[in-house]
Structures are given as C-alpha cells and as structure tokens.
C-alpha cells in the first residue's frame, strides 16, 4: 500500500490565530455592553466606522502587497485593532476622526512595517495617538455617564448617529451641555488649581474609585481579562507588571501626601488602565516575548502611565506608554533571554 508523506509532528496544532483573535473580541463584549449602557450608542457607531475602515485599509494593503485579502481578513486582527480603537474613543466622535485613526493604524503602523507579526508599534495605539495629536478637540467630547441621578441631557440614538456622520450637534445643544471632562481631566485640572483630592472627588461624576460608569466598564474589562488569562490566551506577566509599575509609585505618593495625589484605586480604575493591562499591552506582536521581558515591559508601561498622569500635559498616558515601551522591546528581549538548558549562564554560547 502507498501513502502520502508528511513532516513530523503528525498531531494537529491546538490553536489558531483567528480563534485567538475571536476570543479576545469575545472577552471585550461585556465591557462593550457596559460602555453603551453608560455612555450611549456612540460606541457602536465608532466601532462600525473603525471596523469598516480597518477592513478597507487591510484589504487595500494586502492587495498592494500581492497577498490574498480574504485570508488576511480572516485572521480578525484588523477587527481587534478596530475594537481597541473604539474603546479608546469618546462616544461622540465624528466619523472622519475614527477613520483617520483606523486607517493609520492598519496602513502605516501595521502594513508598512510588514503586516501582522512584523509591526513594531501597537497599531490601535499608534492610530489613537495620531488622532489625539491631529484632532485634540474632538477627543474631549466625552458625554457624562447616564446614571439616573446625574442630570445631563442625554442624546438620542438618531442625534448620536447624526453627530457621528456630520460632526454637528443637534439644534439647541452645545458642547458644554453634552460633554464633560473625564475623571482624569477633572483630577488633573483640579490638582493644577491647588484643590485637594477630597474636594475634587466631591464632583458628581466621581465614583468609589475612578469615575462613575468608568468603574463598571473597568470591572467588565477585568472579567474579560481574567477569562483570557484562564484560557492562557494572555499571560500574567504584562498585567501584573503594569499593576506594579503604576500602583507602587501611586501608593507611595498617596501615602506621603494624600491631599495632592490621587489614590492607587483611582489610578487603577480611571482612564484606560485596565483596558491597557489586559487588552492593549498584551498584543503579543508588539510586546516583549520572554516571560521576564514581559514583566519588565509591563512595569515600564505602568511607570510611564503614572509619570504622564503626574507630570505630563495629557490627562492619560496609556497610548504613549505603550508606544514608548514598544520601542524598548528588542533591547528587553535581548537582555532577558531565558537560560538554555545545558548552557552556562545567560544562554549565550559565543564562539
């Protein structure tokens, strides 16, 4: 009898890239629902715009690079980029802002560096930083969370859609009426104006730790993140490193001077800390790859986030922190090579 010839091993691999990406997306679903619940339907429109333009950018670049666009889209990595970008955007964002971010993320940050697996920078964060610098005003339009007792005019679905498409508010509403500073902005400007943390925390949008609504999204992101940890889709080193890098200095400063430094709990639940720890910094392509290296990478991100929040002119520093540590990845990977069994210390067997 005759047979076909193959290479060992003859057991089918256990996982695939598309299934990994889909599980990451699934882990984001509870937080997405919470986002819509608290901040209105804008998130969905942002997600749709980001996904469409990310897919368009992916298709265009794959065609230009003579690759099969269908196979490229089926890895769902562009969709993950779009989803992360949508989480970073205020719910009121005009479509061209989102589109610019999505296109920059996929075309420049990802494909001009060689496509999936070769990009040095986290595409979603690169796209976000570009629009943060290009359209700073638009990224301030955070609506207040709809919590019942917070008395702000809520926009209807059609009004939100109209804003996404035209960038214009409905008649009779002003930016001042619908948008509110984020908790991090409130904290930063309050401290800059020599108010104490206790006074700032009396502002109605502040919750138990971070901002109201934000905290709940944070909880759901954490649930998704722990699920990814249990499924071993992400590993613990990066989230733990970010936690340590951010919370250790925050705790020290808060202990020394609680009047003018926000609590560690605030830093954990405010802004994009949890999203970053479980979903953004854990992008394997742009992160460090050895276990020790990942921890160091996480600690670096945490420290930079804290530094920007404390001394920087931006309220949050997640995107910059991730991009800066992306640059450090080759050095981290080189310096944290594991000990190869049978080799002398440091794994290197130089001749």
């Amino acid at each position, binding site marked *: 009898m005759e047979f076909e010839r193959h290479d*060992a091993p003859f057991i089918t691999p256990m996982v695939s890239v598309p299934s990994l990406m889909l599980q990451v997306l699934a882990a984001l679903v509870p937080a997405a629902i919470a986002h819509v619940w608290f901040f209105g339907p804008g998130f969905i429109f942002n997600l749709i715009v980001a996904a469409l333009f990310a897919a368009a950018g992916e298709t265009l670049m794959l065609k230009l690079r003579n690759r099969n666009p269908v196979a490229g889209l089926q890895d769902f990595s562009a969709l993950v980029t779009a989803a992360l970008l949508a989480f970073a955007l205020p719910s009121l964002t005009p479509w061209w802002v989102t589109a610019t971010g999505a296109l920059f993320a996929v075309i420049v940050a990802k494909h001009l560096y060689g496509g999936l697996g070769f990009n040095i920078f986290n595409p979603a964060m690169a796209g976000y930083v570009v629009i943060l610098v290009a359209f700073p005003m638009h990224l301030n339009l955070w609506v207040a969370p709809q919590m019942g007792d917070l008395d702000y005019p809520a926009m209807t679905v059609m009004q939100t859609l109209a804003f996404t498409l035209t960038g214009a508010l409905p008649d009779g509403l002003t930016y001042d009426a619908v948008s509110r500073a984020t908790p991090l902005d409130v904290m930063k400007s309050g401290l800059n104006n020599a108010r104490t943390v206790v006074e700032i925390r009396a502002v109605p949008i502040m919750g138990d730790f971070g901002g109201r609504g934000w905290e709940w999204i944070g909880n759901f992101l954490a649930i998704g993140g722990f699920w990814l940890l249990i499924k071993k889709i992400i590993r613990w080193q990066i989230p733990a490193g970010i936690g340590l890098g951010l919370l250790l200095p925050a705790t020290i400063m808060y202990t020394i001077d609680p009047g003018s430094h926000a609590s560690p709990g605030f830093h954990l639940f405010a802004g994009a800390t949890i999203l970053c720890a479980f979903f953004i910094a854990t992008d394997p392509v742009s992160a460090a790859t050895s276990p020790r290296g990942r921890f160091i990478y996480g600690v670096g991100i945490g420290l930079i986030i804290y530094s920007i929040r404390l001394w920087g002119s931006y309220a949050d520093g997640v995107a910059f922190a991730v991009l800066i540590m992306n640059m450090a990845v080759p050095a981290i990977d080189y310096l944290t090579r594991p000990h190869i069994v049978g080799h002398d210390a440091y794994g290197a*067997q130089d001749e």
Partner: protein
Amino acid sequence: MSAPTYDLGKLHGGLRLTANKQVSTEQPIIDVPVPEHLVLPLVQHVGDPVHPLIQIGDRVLKGQLIAEVEGTLGAPVHASSSGKVVAIEPWPIARRYGDNAPCIVIETDGKDEPVKRADIPPSYRAMTPEDLLTLILRGGIVGLGGAVFPTAQKLMQARTCKIDHLILNGVECEPYISCDDRLMRERAAEVISGARILLHALQIDSCFIAVESDKPEAIHALARLLTSLQDDRLVLKQVPTIYPSGGEDQLVQLVANREVPSGGLPSDVGCLVQNVGTAAAIHDWLIHNQPLISRVTTVTGDGINHPVNVRARIGTPVADVIEYIGGYSDMAEQLIIGGPMTGKSVTTDRVPVVKATNSILVLSKTPAINPEMPCIRCGDCAAVCPVQLLPQQLFWYACADNEVKLRQFGLTDCIECGCCDLVCPSHIPLTADFRIAKGRIRELADEKARAVRARERFEARNDRLKREQDERETQLAQQKESARKAGPAAIAAILRRKQQQSEDD
C-alpha cells in the same frame, strides 16, 4: 503499592498530550510469524554501514551473524530466521534522509532453524567488564528506544567517564507508543536482569528505573519484583506524564536533577541512559544466547483495525505485520514509523521493521488545517520548549539565515520534540524549519572547514615556494661568493665549462 514519586528534578515546559495508548495495551504482546521475506538493512543507525559476510545464494540460520561492523561505530546484524539469501539490493526503509538503503533480503524456509553455538558464554558475573562489553557488541544490541545508538560503544564511552547512575528509560512519553509499557508488564524480570548486567558492566551500584505515571500496571509489576529481589541498587522512580520527559537529556534532568551540557552527553554528568527494551535484549543475549533478532513494536492508530503490540523479527516488512494483525481500516492515509511527534512518514509499507521501529502508526489524514500564517510572537512555543529555547526568535533568525544568532540562541540544542509546532497558533512547521536550518549550519561548518583546509594548503604552498626561492638565492650567492674568492682564473674556467656544456647539448 506506593507510587514512588520523589526526588525529581524539574523539566521546563512540555505538553500533556492525549496518550491514545489504551487500545493497544489491552492485549498481551502477540508474535508475528516468520514472513516470506526478511529485509535486513545494512544501515540501521548512526555509524558506518555494516559489511555483509554472506553471498547471494547462501543458506543462513536463525541467529547467524550475517553482517559485521566495518568501522569503529556500529552493531553486527544477525539473520532473524533460517532461509536463503536472495539479494543484497536497495530497498525502501524508514529514515529521514533518502528513501532507499542497501538491504540483505532473505527468503525464509519456514524451518526457523537456529544456528548452533559452540561457545556457551560463562556467567556474566565471572566476566571482566571489558569482556562483557565485547560480548554485548557481538549480540548486535542497540538502543531500542528509537535512537538505536550501538549499546556496547555507548557503554565503552561511559566507562571512560565517572558514572554514578544508570537510568533505565521506561518513560515512553510519546502518544500512541506502548511497546515498553507492555514489555515492562510482561517481562519485568528480564528488564531487571538486564539492568543488573549493565550495572556489572559499568561497575557501579545505582540504577534508577524511570516509568511515567500513566503506566500503573508496569510500575506495579516492577515494584513487586523489586520488593522480592531486595536489591537496593535498583530504585524505581515514577515521573510525571509530560511529553517529552522520556528524551535522554530530559530524563537525566528529571531523574538525576543534572543538566546535560550543550553538545555533551549524559555521561558528562555521570549518567548513562538505556531503554528498558535494551535491558531485556541484553538479558536475552547473555542469559539465553539469543542475539537481537526481534523486538516489540506497537501497531496502532485509527488506520489499523486491531491495534496491538507485536513481537516481530527484525526485517519483517511492515505490510506483513499489519496483515497478520487484521489489516488497515478504511481510514488509513498515513504510515508513520515511530511516534506521532518525532516519527518518520513513509510512502510504502514495504519498509521492514528494524531495530529502531518502536511503533508503526497508521493515521487517517490529519484534518485540513489553516495555512501557515505569520508569527505573532505569542511566545507559547517558548513556554513549552523543554530546553528553554525561544523558538519564535529562532524562527526569525532561521528565515534570515543568520547563522551567528541561530547558534547564540541555541538552535543546535533543539531536540526536535515538536512541542512548539503543536502550540503555534500560526501553524508554522517550526520543527521542520529548524531541521533545515540545522542542516544548513552543518553545511556552513563543513564549508568553513573546507575553506580553512584550502587556505592552509595555499599558505603551505606559498611557504614552500618561498623557502625554495630563498634556498636558490642562498645557493647562488654562495656560488658567486666562492667564485669571487677563487679569482678571475677560476671564473674563466667555469665559463668555459658552461660553454662546453651548452655545446654538448
């Protein structure tokens, strides 16, 4: 019976794989009858090919020496049954490089007539270790775990080092394979007897018998025997069921808690590893005077109707084995000699069972998988690598053909266990890529060595030419000097003589 798990070292990574051993271990080992033709390859392992001692047309007897080692590394081959040598010709065999190898083909006569041995060897206890090793060499004994390194030479090498522990490998960590499991259940006494012979040959008194925790019956059989023997040199150790804990270096790490140095051997850290099947074969040869002419092999997979362990004569074509035990199922698509992680896929079942054949695996086609995708650097490969390599970095450097980095990142330490392939979400055939890269590194090293030799030759030639030139110049200078000293009359005489010479020519 207590489960003896203690004092174990730690192995990095590895995988818990679906064992698929249940079905083949249910029945006892069955004997495959003498086939019509026996095919005995002259190349069965590392080292030099053996040199046939018989002619086409000769009658051979069971156990007769028919091919002898030619170089320094190898093991002799014996006829597995009686019959007539009908050919010495290329035949398909299972190996990674090249499909065919010269084989002695014997047409059996069905009498299975054994060769008469004049010399009944004395009890091994009365022999010196050197004589014992020579005798083991003559039995054609090689490692039966799959690597088939000639046992006598391995022992001889180990005798030059300080050895503390003999480790009997009954781990059998690869899925599907269960021949050692069945052997330990059915022939525990022979395995232990072989271990004691090996201890005598090595002149040491510590032997660990390592068995994986998913073989409770084998552990039970060995433990019961050890209890009755009261030989405190032999210690049973249960190791966790994690692939590839049965790799030679991995087992040393696990059982003796010592790291085999890169490029070194277990003997460098005072250990010698032998498969349990090898120990039983040594017993058969030294106690029953039967050379290595048969082995236990697992025939299994979803392409086989009745998976089972068989004892087949070396040289039995795989087709005969499978036919005897009930044939292929409808799903048979792939024939693999060895296990599903490290085995070799072959195109025909004409290949014979050889000393290395621990498993004949017939699988249905692996389900269609997604095509290879780019590496996303998830690092799962590094998490499972038992040698703690960074396969994702190695893959990168292999693509770039960066020899220096490949060496630095330990490509040559890769044991090709295949764990990284299995966890790679991008379905990159890492192990196959690493095999190719290793081949290229070897080629480059050869090329470099050739270049060095060529340069040395070139420099030697230049030196010689220069030396000759110098010698000529010195000679000329001496002639001139002596002529000058002799004065004008002598110069005139020399010139005359030269003229005379040229006229004569």
